[in-house]
């Protein structure tokens, strides 16, 4: 028991009391009701660790509204409410589909028909005037892949400006085929946003959920979405929830400004997210996500057990990479395999990694059974790791021996391990609970060795924690790991006896 609040806590309370508390980095639209009140009703049964809700800006009015009923609509339909069309491609060329904004309501099983829309002109919005796709009120929609499933084309810098918003109940599903020659969606154009969408293999072996394969794919955003149930079997398929720039090595694919924020990625047999461009690519934010139960289904195959996040290259080099505030646990291999580019890895909680097991409990093969591996390829850059909790229950090292792990400090790792300067030693008392079903799992309180012992990274963009709580600004002390102390909740001040 504490008799009084610590100096650190007093300072925290002072700063937080004066802070403007916001739930998200992005501006909020006042026009869409479910944006202001909806949040996300996560499917994950461990949803008490749900990522923070992020508001995005969407069009508040449209020049046209269309309807798609993938089950009973018509390929030649007018795309009206009384005569819905059947495919996304049916929209192309209709009024408003050259610049938007357009509202599109969808329901039923919408087939890709080979591709959703591929190299089709007159099928795009514009920034601030997007093609805004939502579930038809009272219904849900299921995007069923049955081909190459391209949204966009193969031309560099195609512009589409589409937002898919499943609403608070994740009412748009992308069904990933259980066929590793296919994917859920090839998002091969600029400025696609997938928001509050569920992407699932329905407990099949699965394939990759969302992939880019074209040159110069810009501004793909995946926010508040849930990837799950792609981990049946041990056949060695190397499916990922997301794969940025897949192509033949030294091919043409590249990207810029990829944002992966506040999603849940769970029960993925292969990787969580793989960044692997074939041409130089710039800008990756992987922030505030939950990754758990990753990489157990490839252990017996060519690809070995897989990490939660891979950054690699096969021709090009990624740059401007930030991996922050993620809550990562129960991983067969590494939390992060950082093999290419300069990468900042801040304030993540990486727990129970390197388990090196197949899903059947037998031993698996792993190339990187450490928390954060950097590799030694010619494309490797400087990997900076600060304020991370990195602890393996089975005793694996926090880092590999790569010379590219150049700047590590203020991390917490296991006794006898090395995780940089000003590091601290893990014990179970660092967190409030190590029981996965406990609401305080991996959270910290003011008595934790992680409380106030980090380095201040506010100026480097670390303004929120995993739960979306504002971090201290100015020169204040930082907590280590994804969670702020007590969820950033200050103690009541000025307790007094009323005369």
């Amino acid at each position, binding site marked *: 028991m*504490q008799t009084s*609040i610590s100096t650190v806590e007093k300072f925290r309370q002072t700063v937080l009391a004066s802070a403007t508390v916001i739930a998200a980095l992005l501006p909020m639209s006042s026009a869409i009701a479910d944006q202001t009140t909806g949040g996300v009703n996560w499917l994950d049964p461990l949803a008490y660790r749900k990522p923070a809700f992020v508001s995005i800006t969407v069009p508040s009015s449209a020049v046209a509204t269309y309807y798609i009923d993938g089950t009973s609509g018509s390929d030649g339909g007018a795309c009206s409410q009384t005569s819905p069309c059947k495919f996304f491609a049916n929209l192309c060329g209709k009024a408003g589909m050259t610049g938007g904004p357009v509202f599109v309501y969808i329901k039923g099983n919408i087939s890709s028909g080979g591709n959703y829309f591929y190299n089709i002109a007159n099928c795009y919005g514009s920034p601030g005037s997007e093609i805004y796709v939502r579930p038809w009120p009272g219904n849900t929609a299921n995007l069923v892949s049955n081909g190459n499933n391209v949204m966009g084309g193969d031309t560099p810098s195609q512009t589409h400006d589409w937002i898919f918003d499943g609403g608070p109940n994740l009412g748009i599903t992308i069904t990933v085929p259980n066929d590793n020659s296919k994917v859920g969606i090839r998002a091969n154009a600029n400025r696609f946003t997938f928001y509050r969408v569920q992407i699932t293999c329905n407990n099949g072996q699965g394939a990759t959920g969302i992939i880019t394969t074209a040159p110069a794919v810009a501004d793909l955003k995946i926010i508040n979405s849930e990837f799950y149930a792609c981990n049946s079997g041990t056949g060695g398929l190397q499916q990922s929830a997301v794969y940025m720039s897949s192509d033949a090595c030294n091919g043409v694919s590249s990207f810029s400004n990829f944002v992966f924020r506040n999603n849940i990625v769970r029960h993925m047999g292969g990787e969580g997210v793989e960044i692997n461009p074939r041409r130089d690519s710039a800008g990756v934010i992987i922030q505030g996500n939950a990754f758990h139960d990753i990489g157990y289904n490839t252990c017996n195959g060519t690809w070995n057990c897989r990490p939660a996040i891979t950054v690699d290259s096969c021709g090009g080099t990624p740059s401007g990479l930030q991996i922050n505030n993620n809550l990562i646990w129960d991983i067969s291999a590494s939390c992060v395999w950082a093999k290419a580019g300069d990468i900042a890895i801040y304030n993540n909680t990486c727990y129970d990694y390197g388990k090196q097991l197949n899903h059947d409990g037998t031993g698996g093969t792993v190339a990187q059974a450490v928390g954060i591996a950097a590799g030694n390829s010619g494309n490797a850059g400087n990997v900076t790791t600060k304020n991370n909790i990195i602890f393996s229950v089975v005793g694996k090292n926090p880092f590999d021996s790569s010379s590219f792990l150049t700047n590590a400090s203020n991390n917490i790792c296991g006794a006898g391990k090395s995780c940089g300067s000003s590091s601290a030693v893990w014990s179970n008392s660092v967190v409030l609970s190590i029981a996965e079903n406990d*609401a305080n799992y991996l959270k910290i309180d003011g008595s934790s060795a992680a409380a106030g012992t980090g380095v201040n990274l506010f100026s480097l963009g670390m303004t929120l924690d995993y739960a979306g709580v504002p971090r201290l600004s100015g020169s204040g002390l930082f907590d280590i790991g994804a969670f702020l102390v007590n969820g950033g*909740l200050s103690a*009541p001040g000025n*307790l*007094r006896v009323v005369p």
Partner: protein
Amino acid sequence: MLSVALLGSCGGGGGSSGQSAAAGGKSSVTLAWDPVAAPNVAGYRVYYGTSTGIYSQPQGSGLEAGTATTFTAMGLNGGTRYYFAATAYDNTGNESDYSNEVFKDIP
């Protein structure tokens, strides 16, 4: 809004808001605190004990004050010094550290 709780001799948490019972011959004390300026605060809890820093309720099981910023503890034994602290909590299971501690000597 004022919250009131009768302090039981067993020391367990869960005193209810608005309770009006009073033990004969025993005293009460009213506490107040400044609200926590955060949008996700769901309420406050009050902890008490007869030794400084040692409270009768496990953290997470303090006396429920609801969203009020005052609380009246009743049924206090005479000739005893009571120590009090308060916490804030949110609806996702987070609870703050303890506030500053105050005490009251019951005559």
